[in-house]
């Protein structure tokens, strides 16, 4: 939390439009008495430049430099690399004033900060984040006398006052990949990446190439889909170790957790962006360190010479902007060091191309989309809402750059309508109205936003709108399969079903389940719709009532069944889940769950959008297209003949020889 409050404070200052003194103090550098009037900074800088064109060797004119960066200044990664570099510059040039706004992962905030610094007359404003480009393009035009630098990027945005700076991080990645291959005993190496963009992607590609130069080495790469999710990065590291990796690396600020995992598991780590030795003093082999001061010196020299931008710079091993810093605390075998030195030499003299070996396998990259979800219950309901949130996250992981916004818990239809309208208004490309009850409102809204694609589920009806897709789940299919299995497993011949209200996919599931069970054998299926999607206690008691009536197998649909699963667990009664995998709720007694994989239809919908069609089609997930999956619980010993029966039933439904009997 502390980590979060700091950037908030930094933004506070910017937003309050306090003057440079305060901002500099925030940056943590001793500030010279700044000009407190608004304009002089820039005019003075250009005026000085005219009278005295400086050469790089001479001490430079005192400058006011501002940094706007997405993560914390002490992230031991991307942001820290630029902060360190600016501090080096400040040390070299006494009088340089430094202001930092870190933690602005919200692009709008970063834009506000960049604009604020330009307005306050800073001479050089560093927009340190690839994601800031779009905003910078606008801002740079408004402040033609201010110099901006944008990284990591190779594009100056066509502006005469924007410099671009980039890191050839694949070079250090390649060198460390070579070392990793030598040091690994298991020959399995794990990589934890954020999303597949920018210098992180370059690093990972270079590293993988370097490692795979050696035969028999497996490199597992896991892009976790976030720059900030430390917990997820740790879990990814754990997963790598579980898969046999004994050397790990990773890029971006969220890897701090992964380094900890490496330390705890006695596994080697290679760092990048900043020197990460402090995180695991025994196990960090080396770090590729960004020395942005190399390019900053050039940029500042250009400014002093009167040129505010228009050039692209790069740090690499040759110009010393990238350095491999070894950890003295780790006894690196001489063999590895030799290989590393040879690789560095080869890269510098041009005989090795770190990215060349990489076979390009971009699976039809889709355009980055902005997707919004509006759903009635909580994102973590282990049921209806979670199914769509999970699916959209899968899509986002597959398509780097996808932006996801979620408004969950909007069981109030008018609020949902307001949210749907709001997202459409804010220019989201695809707005998912994830609730049958939203249809009436969506019909109105979709007409007002003909250029926005909407998808509505669960439904089979596109509302007659050309920009509405419908998606539905044939949940009766999984229901039928599980009903058949349930009939086989019951000893008492009584099966209980806990439903919410008799509508939508819940009804389909219940009907399919009942029909499957009844067709399979002479069983009684008691169905209890409790009249609520949210009353957990009542659902539990309904489960109790079923058990009291002799049921020894239960199932149920919708988010309030979490309590009923607990009852099943407490009474040693079997449970079948639907909508999401509910095994975690009763690890011994959940036989299996029908899981919705909405990503199957989302991929189609997004492909249609990319192809220019915003809707008008209805999609369905079912067993045949893989959108419905029966996920068995490995912890429950299902007899082989029942497994065979389930498989046969699934095949029967897919080939059409079995009718689920629902609607």
């Amino acid at each position, binding site marked *: 939390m502390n980590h979060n409050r700091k950037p908030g404070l930094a933004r506070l200052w910017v937003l309050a439009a306090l003057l440079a003194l305060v901002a500099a103090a925030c940056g943590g550098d001793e500030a010279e008495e700044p000009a407190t009037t608004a304009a002089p900074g820039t005019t003075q800088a250009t005026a000085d430049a005219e009278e005295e064109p400086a050469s790089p060797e001479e001490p430079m004119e005192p400058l006011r430099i501002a940094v706007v960066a997405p993560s914390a200044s002490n992230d031991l990664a991307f942001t820290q690399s630029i902060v360190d570099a600016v501090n080096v510059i400040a040390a070299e040039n006494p009088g340089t004033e430094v202001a930092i706004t870190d933690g602005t992962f919200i692009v709008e905030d970063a834009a506000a900060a960049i604009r604020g610094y330009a307005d306050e007359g800073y001479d050089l404003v560093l927009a340190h984040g690839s994601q800031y480009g779009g905003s910078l393009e606008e801002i740079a035009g408004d402040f033609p006398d201010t110099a901006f630098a944008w990284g990591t990027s190779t594009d100056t945005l066509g502006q005469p006052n924007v410099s671009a700076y980039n890191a050839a991080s694949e070079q250090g990645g390649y060198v460390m990949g070579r070392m990793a291959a030598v040091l690994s005993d298991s020959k399995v190496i794990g990589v934890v990446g954020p999303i597949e963009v920018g210098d992180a992607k370059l690093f990972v590609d270079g590293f993988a190439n370097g490692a795979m130069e050696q035969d028999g080495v497996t490199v597992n790469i896991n892009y976790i889909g976030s720059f900030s999710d430390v917990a997820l990065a740790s879990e990814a590291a754990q997963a790598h170790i579980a898969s046999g990796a004994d050397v790990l690396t990773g890029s971006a600020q969220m890897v701090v957790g992964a380094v900890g995992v490496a330390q705890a598991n006695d596994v080697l780590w290679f760092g990048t962006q900043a020197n990460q030795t402090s995180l695991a003093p025994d196990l960090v082999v080396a770090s590729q360190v960004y020395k942005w001061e190399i390019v900053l010196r050039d940029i500042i020299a250009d400014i002093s010479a009167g040129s505010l931008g228009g050039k692209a710079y790069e740090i690499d091993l040759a110009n010393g902007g990238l350095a491999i810093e070894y950890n003295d605390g780790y006894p690196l075998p001489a063999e590895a060091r030799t290989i590393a030195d040879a690789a560095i030499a080869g890269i510098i003299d041009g005989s090795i191309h770190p990215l060349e070996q990489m076979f390009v396998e971009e699976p039809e990259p889709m355009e980055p989309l902005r997707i919004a979800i509006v759903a009635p219950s909580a994102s973590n309901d282990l049921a209806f809402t979670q199914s769509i949130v999970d699916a959209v996250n899968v899509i986002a992981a597959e398509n780097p750059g996808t932006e996801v916004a979620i408004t969950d818990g909007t069981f109030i239809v008018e609020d949902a309508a307001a949210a749907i309208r709001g997202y459409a208004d804010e220019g989201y490309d695809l707005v998912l109205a994830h609730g049958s009850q939203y249809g009436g409102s969506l019909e109105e809204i979709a007409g007002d936003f003909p250029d926005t694609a909407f998808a509505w589920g669960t439904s089979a*009806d596109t509302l007659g709108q050309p920009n509405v897709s419908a998606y539905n789940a044939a949940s009766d299919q999984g229901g039928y399969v599980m009903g058949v299995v349930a009939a086989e497993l019951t000893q008492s011949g009584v099966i209980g079903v806990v439903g919410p209200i008799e*509508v939508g996919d819940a009804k389909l599931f219940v009907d399919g389940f009942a029909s499957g069970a009844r067709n399979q054998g002479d069983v009684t299926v008691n169905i209890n719709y409790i009249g609520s999607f949210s009353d957990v206690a009542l659902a539990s008691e309904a489960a109790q009532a079923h058990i009291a009536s002799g049921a020894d197998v239960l199932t149920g649909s919708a988010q309030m069944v979490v309590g009923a699963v607990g009852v099943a667990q407490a009474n040693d009664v079997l449970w079948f889940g639907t909508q999401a995998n509910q095994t975690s709720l009763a690890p011994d007694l959940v036989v299996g769950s029908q899981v919705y994989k909405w990503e199957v239809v989302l991929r189609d919908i997004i492909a249609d959008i990319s192809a220019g069609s915003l809707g008008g089609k209805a999609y369905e997930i079912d067993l045949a297209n893989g959108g419905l999956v029966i996920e068995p619980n490995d912890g429950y010993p299902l007899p082989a003949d029942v497994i065979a029966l389930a498989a046969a039933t699934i095949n029967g439904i897919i080939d059409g020889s079995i009718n689920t009997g629902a609607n």
Partner: protein
Amino acid sequence: MTSPGSAGRRSRLANQLLSYSVPVLAVLGALAIGAVMLAMLGANPFSGFWAMAKGAFGSSGALVETALKSTPLLLVGVGITIAFRANVINIGGEGQMVSGALATTVIALGMTDVPSWIALPLALLAGLVGGAIWGAIPGALKAYFGVNEILSTIMLNVVAVQAMNFLLRAPLIDPKEIERGTRIPQTARLPESTDLPLFVENGRLHIGPFIGVLAAVLVYMLLWRTTSGYRLRAVGQSGDAARYSGMSVERNVVWALTLSGAMAGLAGAILVLGSEGHRMVTDGSTIGFTGSAGFNGIVTALFGGLHPLWTIPSSFLFGGLLVGAIALQRAAQVPTALVLALNGLVVLFVVSLDRYRRQLKEREERSASAIAIDQEGDDGSPPPSGKDLEDG
């Protein structure tokens, strides 16, 4: 108003201004805690609140959304002022909104091929009556059977929501839903003749907010310009005194809850007729339909000093807060639950600081009455609380 001395006027004005700023300060206090919560969630409170302000009042579209969100709050709030004046508590607004909406739906569904000038007033009237009945029941139970209105209104909320589920799932369900097998508990689109007229074609602003304002004015006139209103207030002030002067306390209690329910019912009617989907739809819960307006309306009334006219601006502010909170959620991408928590904080702060407003108000009344005897002391300014009243 007879002319008070200029010194008295100044201090009265100052007190008045102070007493109006107290609820505003209370809201700011709640938002300050909200800011801390936002920061803890990793969101930027300032951009969040900026988005909130923009989302509530920042554009004509936002203002329209706010006006629409305010309407049920205003109507329920106006109903609450009636009940409070008669010294009864009506926390059954949720159920009354639902029953009003159901009555409206039933009537509106039957209005195919009926011209709008007949269909629409009938549909609105149905809501009024539906809510009135749901208010009259606890009124009668209290007056003639001694059943406390808190118990009966809470229980009637439960009954109303189940009636809604039953009606929307079976008799009133959209036939297409049965045909398709999707069975969403919603009615067919109501006939266009019952749509609330729009101010701008293809816009969102319908006449609902103006019905709300009209109702507030009418209730004000009723309470302070008619004998029946006078009786209500007299009963609220002192049941025994009213009884002694020959008024029926029982009848007035029923009357107050009936009127109060009627206002909530009208709110429900407007929610249905003015909804995006032009139909009633349920998720099986009350607040799924009302959006807690039956509760928030109580707060709105208090915010407006329990005066029907002051409830108008108060509902607009409160509606803006709710609309803005949704915009904030979108901008900051924090869990929507934060909106509810913020709503609760605002209520707590407003109600906690209400005593200071009342004290300031009392001081103001004292300084005013020291100078002149005010014939209609409470027209246009909020009274100190539900208990006081000045008979003209």
